[in-house]
């Protein structure tokens, strides 16, 4: 047993390739045999990933010594690298076509999440402007929340809540996107770009679209990649000042 553990921890990335390969195999088998391909295999695989993450802690399953390679394979470097690679199949004409809608949806998405999140928090007892803004920012993504919170000097428990909100959003988007794709008409590049702009959480959008239709990934990812930056720009400044006037 010791020898195996030693080999695996020495070659953690290679083991991650094998491990993810097995997850994919099992998921596609389940998709075919148990759901008659009604639920996409990649959606099942991503869901299994989330369940496995529960066995770990902050870094999910990568907190267990055997699975440290998963953090490298699923880390931001390889994620962004492979997202860029998906652009190879995208059409620039389609992107130009949805360009204005994409930019509009970005601003709309950040502002909507900010005020919806903040308002719910307000009615649940977080009535000061700093908490409103931090929790509202958390409803954007789990990066915008803590950045806004620390910029405004919000309390640590509010910042922790804002991170939790962002993570819940990311996971919900991952699970729900394939389930509601038809209802929201998510089957063309324009809608995918609008979806990426409004939802914004890169991990959620990336995983959600992967489970719906791989061809749509570049369009959604393209807008989503600007969302966190825009959120970090607007939430602690303009949007906070607006809130500050009212409460």
């Amino acid at each position: 047993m010791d020898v195996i553990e030693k080999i695996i921890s020495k070659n953690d990335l290679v083991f991650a390739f094998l491990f993810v390969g097995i997850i994919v195999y099992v998921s596609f088998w389940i998709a075919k045999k148990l759901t008659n391909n009604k639920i996409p295999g990649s959606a099942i695989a991503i869901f299994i990933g989330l369940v496995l993450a529960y066995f770990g802690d902050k870094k999910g399953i990568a907190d267990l010594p055997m699975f440290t390679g998963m953090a490298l394979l699923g880390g931001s470097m390889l994620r962004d690298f492979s997202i860029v690679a998906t652009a190879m199949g995208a059409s620039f004409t389609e992107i130009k076509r949805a360009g204005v809608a994409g930019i509009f949806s970005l601003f709309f998405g950040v502002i909507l999440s900010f005020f919806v999140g903040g308002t719910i928090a307000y009615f649940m007892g977080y009535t000061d402007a700093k908490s409103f803004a931090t929790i509202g920012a958390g409803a954007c993504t789990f990066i915008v929340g803590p950045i806004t919170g620390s910029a405004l000097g919000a309390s640590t428990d509010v910042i922790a809540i804002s991170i939790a909100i962002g993570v819940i959003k990311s996971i919900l988007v991952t699970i729900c996107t394939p389930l509601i794709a038809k209802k929201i008409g998510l089957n063309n590049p324009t809608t995918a770009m609008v979806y990426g702009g409004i939802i914004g959480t890169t991990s959620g959008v990336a995983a959600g679209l992967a489970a719906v239709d791989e061809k749509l990934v570049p369009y959604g990812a393209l807008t989503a990649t600007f969302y966190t930056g825009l959120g970090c720009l607007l939430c602690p400044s303009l949007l906070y000042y607006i809130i500050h006037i009212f409460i």
Partner: protein
Amino acid sequence: MKIYGVAILAGCYLVGQLIGEQLGKLVGVSGNVGGVGFAMIMLILLGSWMKKRGLLGAEPEKGILFWNAMYIPVVIAMSATQNVKAALSGGWVAVAVGVLGTAISFAFVPIIAKMAKPKQEDKDDLYL
């Protein structure tokens, strides 16, 4: 040679990161603003330009397509390394904001997408 394709991809990625970092500094945000997006646009433009001139053969393209195909496995590994425990332990405010906020955002996707579509058809004549 497949590595040429991977190198082109890597070049676009790194230049995109550089633009994103600089843009972040410019607007006063710590972090990268749209680095991946810029890299994607670069790869699309560079890829189609090279294909038109026959500079991007089938082999280099396979190098890019390999990483394209690795996207889903990477996303699965990413899901397995999320802080799921934190998500489940954020309390009721976190759950309420997370669920309602996400649901409302989803509801607006078809509305905005619809607003975009009729405009498109008008513009098509102008821009084509």
